[in-house]
């Protein structure tokens, strides 16, 4: 229906997560209407990110070069590792301003239903980092989901007695209503209650 390059653009945009054919079409026409400068900036940004961004050799976070900005920062505490599922999980932890250690990105979470086993994650690499000797505490910050909990248990088994292991606390989100809390979350909030 459209000239072939437009159809190709719609098809490529339609491959993005959460983008259906109609949205892809709307985005394609937006790109067609936008200035050459804006459209080429988008194309360059996509090319650049694919050419220059890889994974950190140490922690598997996104990196421009062999080591990510966090691993190369001499001000970060080298005794502390925070284990997360995906690179995007690093951002919210950094935003808190409460954490000054290093990270380890697993690349997913254990899920027997989806066939994701320990060998599919970077757990061996984490164990090797701990065995290297500098690490004193591993903070397990996998998602508080069933797969995230299963992963946390597995890591706990692998690293038990080798290092101090901690897990992010579970509880009620700030500003939430108690009446909407589910029983498991509220139960954990009660277990982890603190004196005021």
């Amino acid at each position, binding site marked *: 229906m459209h000239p072939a390059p437009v159809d190709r653009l719609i098809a490529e945009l339609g491959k993005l997560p959460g983008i259906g054919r109609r949205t892809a079409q709307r985005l394609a026409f937006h790109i067609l209407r936008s200035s050459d400068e804006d459209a080429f900036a988008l194309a360059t940004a996509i090319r650049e990110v694919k050419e220059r961004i890889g994974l950190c050799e140490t922690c598997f976070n996104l990196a421009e070069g062999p080591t990510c900005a966090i691993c190369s920062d001499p001000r970060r505490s080298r005794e502390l590792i925070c284990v997360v599922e995906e690179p995007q999980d690093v951002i919210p932890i950094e935003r808190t301003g409460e954490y000054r250690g290093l990270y380890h990105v697993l690349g997913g979470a254990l899920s027997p239903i989806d066939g994701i086993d320990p060998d599919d994650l970077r757990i061996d690499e984490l164990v090797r980092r701990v065995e290297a000797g500098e690490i004193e505490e591993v903070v397990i910050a996998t998602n508080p989901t069933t797969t995230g909990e*299963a992963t946390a248990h597995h890591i706990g088994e692998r690293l038990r007695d080798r290092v101090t292991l901690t897990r992010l606390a579970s509880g009620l989100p700030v500003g*939430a209503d108690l009446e909407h809390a589910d029983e*498991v979350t509220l139960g954990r909030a009660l277990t982890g209650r603190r004196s005021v």
Partner: protein
Amino acid sequence: MPGSFKTEGVVLRSIRYGEADRILHLYTAERGRVNAIAKGSRRPRSRFGGRLEPFFRLDLMLHEGRSELCTVTGAATVDGYPALRADGDAIDAAARGCDAVLRLLDSAEPNRAAYGLLCRYLALLDRGAGADGADAAGADRHAVGLAFRLKLLLASGFAPELGSCARCGEREGIVSFSGAAGGVVCGSCEASGFPVSAEAHRFMAAAIGGPIAELPPVSEPARRQVDRAIGDTLAHHAHVNLRAVA
């Protein structure tokens, strides 16, 4: 017919979708397998809280529109199985059990027996969680998982013939199991099967005929035979391949 309906159900699988939604695979008491979308459920302040995670047993309010997916409009916890969630091996066993239900029972027809079985299995794993591989009654969790699958075969109409030879009806001299024949086979008909011990045969009969919490002890070789018997039966008759029980 479009509209809202209430049903009790268990979350078998939860898949992240879009920015903050989840797609849920549910097994419900009234409608069998139902797929639904829970909009905004991954936001920390979602009114669903964490109760749309796998293995939660819920009272659900669902809206059925023109889409293939229902929309979750309400969810109250019947049982969250909190102890199960604190035990890695129990989570793994529950996930494999839910996977078996997902693969074997994919129709929208209600199956009360299968639904009740799934709830009892999760409750059993929850009671035995943290007990180092044993369930509440001390039975091996692996054996309980096999018994669950055998009962699931019964509930879904694929129970193997265990009383007599599935080919000739002979009651004595049972030596093999044949997935193609659909049960145990005698020495004269054994060509199509694999050897099955008296212990494995007894375990299968006890698991199908008795309560899941009162299983006889079973050795590792017999367990492997039972696992293979279940796998062969399903592969031949339901065209389903299950993941190993452990």
